[in-house]
């Protein structure tokens, strides 16, 4: 039996330790497609978080009622229902954003992040934990989308959330707002995250090795003394 995490850790793990985008490479389609600007990224992440949280809430509360054989179909139906709600609300309240995100809102249905969390977490855990988990994952998703969208917007148009941030002489890199820019930026970010992690891992390893050597030396000295006596 795996050790239960504390409740705050249950939420926080989604932010970085198990960040859905940078660590698990889940749900990359919307990540790449809508991050032309930071505001699009935020809207997409909020929509996804809403669907993820509501679906988790429902699925974790009826997890014992769903027969195992048809669980995937049941999950997909529940997710699709919430996606329909989000889509209709966005069309009514934020027609501009809804147009900008286009078919990527309905495509939340097949976002592997959502189905993955239901299968891996909500179907096995209590309602409270599932809620925290999905909120954490949603926040992690938001961070990733905001970073990617923000970078692409800054370099691609010289603005952030519509406000000019680059000096006037800055020539926008058109490539950043084209599809190619999405792949390149995410690739570089991924590489940066990996390189940071590997360095941290190496540091930890070095620290452990040092500790081991020190302990061994001490033990040897002790042993030597013991022999001497």
């Amino acid at each position: 039996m795996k050790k239960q995490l504390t409740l705050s850790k249950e939420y926080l793990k989604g932010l970085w330790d198990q960040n859905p985008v940078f660590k698990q490479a889940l749900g990359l389609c919307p990540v790449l497609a809508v991050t032309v600007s930071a505001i699009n990224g935020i809207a997409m992440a909020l929509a996804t978080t809403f669907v993820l949280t509501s679906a988790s809430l429902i699925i974790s509360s009826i997890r014992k009622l769903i027969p195992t054989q048809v669980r995937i179909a049941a999950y997909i139906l529940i997710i699709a229902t919430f996606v329909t709600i989000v889509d209709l609300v966005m069309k009514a309240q934020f027609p501009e954003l809804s147009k900008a995100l286009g078919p990527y809102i309905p495509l939340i249905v097949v976002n592997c992040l959502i189905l993955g969390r239901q299968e891996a977490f909500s179907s096995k855990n209590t309602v409270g934990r599932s809620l925290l988990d999905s909120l954490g994952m949603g926040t992690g998703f938001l961070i990733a989308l905001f970073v990617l969208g923000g970078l692409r917007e800054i370099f691609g148009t010289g603005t952030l959330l519509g406000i000019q941030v680059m000096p006037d002489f800055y020539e926008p890199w058109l490539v950043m707002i084209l599809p190619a820019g999405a792949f390149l930026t995410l690739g570089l970010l991924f590489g940066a995250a990996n390189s940071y992690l590997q360095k941290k891992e190496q540091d930890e390893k070095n620290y452990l090795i040092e500790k081991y050597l020190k302990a061994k030396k001490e033990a040897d000295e002790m042993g030597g003394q013991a022999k001497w006596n």
Partner: protein
Amino acid sequence: MELILIFFSAAIVNNFVLAYFLGICPFIGVSGKITSAFSMGMATTFVMTITAIVTWLIYHLLLVPFQLEFLQYVSFILVIASLVQFVEMFVKKVSQPLYRALGIFLPLITTNCAILGLALFMVLKDYSFIQGVVYGVGAGAGFTLAITVMAGIREELDLADVPKPFKGVPITLIVAGLLALAFMGFSGLISI
């Protein structure tokens, strides 16, 4: 003529993977070997064509007459999931060699966003039945092209000296970015 345009537009100019970012998961995950990538592409094309036919019929003969358009996501995803299951059973019964070639890839296709994307784009663009089918075949061909080219590059990448943090997903994404740049050369070729 218009049909040919739709085909090439879906396959090359507005390539599903490189321009619309649909089907990234198998693109990153499966495209390690040319042969398996090609099989995956063929299986996807197959399902895409059938999906185009079935979803068009459902949308125009069932949802529109009864004014149930808001149910389209729920019904499309259910149709796709059961369709994939059905295709798998059918192929297994009819052709064992084909089943062995496609078999393991078929279940993966349900969660491929390119399939649902195809159905949604088809409704959005208001295609007629024939146009929709051609669009489906074209999108499948484009997916096959992208994933096979990618697999070819990745086979070479295994031998290349990639910096350690960039091994795996990051370098694949960067290569995909360069491919997308290359495919941009086709834009303006057809405007549809």
